[in-house]
């Protein structure tokens, strides 16, 4: 009897018209994705037919870009709110996991726990919550006049928030009220919904700062991350798995799924042409604006677009992503325009361009090299590039025994090989 081969986890990361900033302009992108629920139902069914572990919706409680002129050249200012979107998809699918992003800064734990419990009930135990602390000033302005909280404060609040939500999920139904009185929250009663069919919804996180990693090590079941190189991915993987013991957890209790932005075609030349076609559709001011938001500075446009990135002050925004961008610019000696196009395309995630065999090779190398438990797949545009990955790469991974040919379980925890919480 041979040991069963470890298989990778796959998420289908659904976002607007596609992950490429210029996706919406592509002739084969569905430009009305953000107002078309049938489009999303079709995407979910495509991902389910390909046996993806989950679909994932990111979120921000505000528009992405404060400058309306720049925003108007992208498709990202409008879309569905993810909890309502996934609740609709829950009853139009049968097996695939449903992970929605929601902020600990602009919600209350009782309400959030309740919404995700409901999503879990509607889906028969396929829900997950991606915890974010929300680093954008645009979002902060929709929730009061005090502005964005400092990074450490956001994480302090997030820790308490996550602990209350877990208690509510696990104490649901027959346990007496917990009467939490904490620094940020007070909660008196247990949830008024039944216990989750999978024990508790799956906890997902993506923050890669030191505090983010500790919070993930303490509470997360799944971690999404951005890593350009194998070495970065491996270092993150080892670091996070190494932190688990301190919280009484085992390495396999967390599944680490880096983002991958694949562009796949039958030949390498076709794949490269496909990528270049998208890159050409990016307006300079959109690229620079997107790069600015990742660097949490507002005046990047003041610098010569063909010159290097200026020295940057420390940021209250996404610290770990900022470090990634700066490191890449210094390493490859890139201009602001180069960087803008590069990051606008893949948003700091790992871009793989090639044939199904080449893409599968790259995924296999990171998976078997101990840098990933799976991948969060970020198609460049929808529906075409999700279809391509499902039709071309998934069968190649299945042929190699690296990915399931059918679902074995029914809940998201079962797909991911996670323990059912007590």
């Amino acid at each position, binding site marked *: 009897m041979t040991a069963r081969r470890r298989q990778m986890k796959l998420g289908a990361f659904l976002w607007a018209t596609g992950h490429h900033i210029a996706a*919406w*302009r*592509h*002739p084969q*992108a569905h*430009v*009305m994705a*953000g*107002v078309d*629920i049938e489009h999303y*139902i079709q995407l979910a069914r495509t991902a389910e037919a390909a046996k993806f572990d989950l679909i994932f919706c990111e979120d*921000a*409680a*505000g*528009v*992405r870009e404060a400058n*309306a*002129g720049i*925003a*108007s*050249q992208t*498709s990202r*200012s*409008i*879309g*569905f*709110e993810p*909890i*309502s*979107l996934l*609740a*609709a998809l829950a*009853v*139009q699918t049968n097996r695939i996991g449903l992970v929605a992003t929601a902020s600990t800064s*602009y*919600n*209350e734990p*009782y*309400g959030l726990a309740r*919404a995700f*419990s*409901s*999503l879990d009930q*509607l889906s028969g135990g396929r829900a997950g919550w991606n915890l974010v602390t929300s680093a954008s000033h645009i979002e902060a*302005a*929709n*929730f*009061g*006049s005090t502005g964005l909280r400092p990074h450490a404060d956001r994480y302090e609040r997030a820790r308490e928030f996550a602990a209350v939500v877990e208690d509510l999920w696990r104490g649901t139904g027959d346990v007496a*009220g917990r009467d939490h*009185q904490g620094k940020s929250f*007070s*909660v*008196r*009663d*247990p*949830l*008024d*919904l*039944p216990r989750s069919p999978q024990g508790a919804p799956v906890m997902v996180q993506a923050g890669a700062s030191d505090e983010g990693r500790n919070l993930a090590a303490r509470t997360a079941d799944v971690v999404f991350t951005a890593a350009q190189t194998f070495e970065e991915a491996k270092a993150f993987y080892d670091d996070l798995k190494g932190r688990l013991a301190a919280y009484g957890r085992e390495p396999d209790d967390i599944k680490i799924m880096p983002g991958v932005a694949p562009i796949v075609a039958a030949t390498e030349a076709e794949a490269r042409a496909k990528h270049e076609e998208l890159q050409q559709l990016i307006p300079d001011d959109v690229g620079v604006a997107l790069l600015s938001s990742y660097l949490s500075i507002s005046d990047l446009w003041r610098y010569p677009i063909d010159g290097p990135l200026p020295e940057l002050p420390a940021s209250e925004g996404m610290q770990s992503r900022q470090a990634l961008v700066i490191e890449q610019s210094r390493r490859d000696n890139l201009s602001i325009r180069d960087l803008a196009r590069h990051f606008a395309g893949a948003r700091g995630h790992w871009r793989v361009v090639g044939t199904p065999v080449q893409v599968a090779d790259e995924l296999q190398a990171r998976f078997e090299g101990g840098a990933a438990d799976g991948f969060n797949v970020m198609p460049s545009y929808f529906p075409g590039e999700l279809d391509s990955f499902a039709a071309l790469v998934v069968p190649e991974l299945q042929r190699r025994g690296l990915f399931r040919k059918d679902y074995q379980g029914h809940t998201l925890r079962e797909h991911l090989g996670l323990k059912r919480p007590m």
Partner: protein
Amino acid sequence: MRSSNYRGNGATMHLAVSLLPRRTSSEVPAAAGPDFSHLARFVQKAEAAGLDMVLLADSAPVAGSDAPNGQVPFEATTLLAALATVTDRIGLVAGASTVAHQPYNLARRFASLDIISHGRAGWNATIVPEPREAANFSRPQGFSRDDFRRRAEEFIDIVQGLWRGWDADALLFDKRGGRFFNPEKMHLLDHKGEYFSVRGPLNVARSPQDTPVLVMTGLSEPDIDIGARVADVILLDEQTAEPAKALHDDLKRRALACGRSPGALKVLMNVAPVIDGTGAQAEARGAEIAAGPEAVADGLEECFRSKACDGFNILMPPSALDDFVDLVLPELRRRGLLQSDYRNATLRSHLGLDPGDDQ
């Protein structure tokens, strides 16, 4: 017979039904509560009967109580999203609390539901404080009644303002020209008030029905001006025609004073008929009004013809809906009191709230 001039003012009655499973209901296992398919069948039945909308109650903080949805294992807005995918015409209205949500999040959730349902969503905003809710949403000190009211009014104004942040023709989808939307047709809210500060805009497109429908319940005297100014539909708990008519007339007068057409506000009476098809009892919130399907229809017709209301919200457990649909509705239809079918696709059109409907 066409019903349009039956009442002189050209109106047929609007009918809503509240999803109100009861603990005592024997059809449903008490431990698990009704599953989704059970609730879907209820709503599909209401849709097949041509009702304007289903109201889904929500009750966050009342674990173990016998509150209306104590048995429904779903939060109302998520349930609404799921129901939207298994129905085509009927309006879907969810309760959601101004304590449990931030206005930006609530506006977004309902704007999204409205697009998911192709313009059939509504928000039932209660402005009655629920102390147990405050205790679970980090407000252990609660709110004074007046504080709660002022906060709720500001909350509702923000939500409706956010719903109007994108003009209906703002999205251009112009791939070649690189113009996804027209930035001049996107508007910041820039609200700075006593309780909230919200810049906007919403990151959800304009509703297919202009804005989600705003339903209000539980209005007490000091709330009436708010309801008359902002609500699309107001539900009354008055049990008989006379006090209902007084309140109905008062609401319409005040709506007019706010510069609204009286027809832009629909007033429905909550009624809880009990019908067993064999001439049993019917009641409105405990007060017996009639017996048997014809008599139930008589009671509704009398209220409606006396212009005490624009229609009714029927409170009943799923098990009783069949009798109402199979026995009472045909009688109302025979009398020309109901629209024969959905005229259009949106909840606003069902309710006669499209621009020009009341002219």
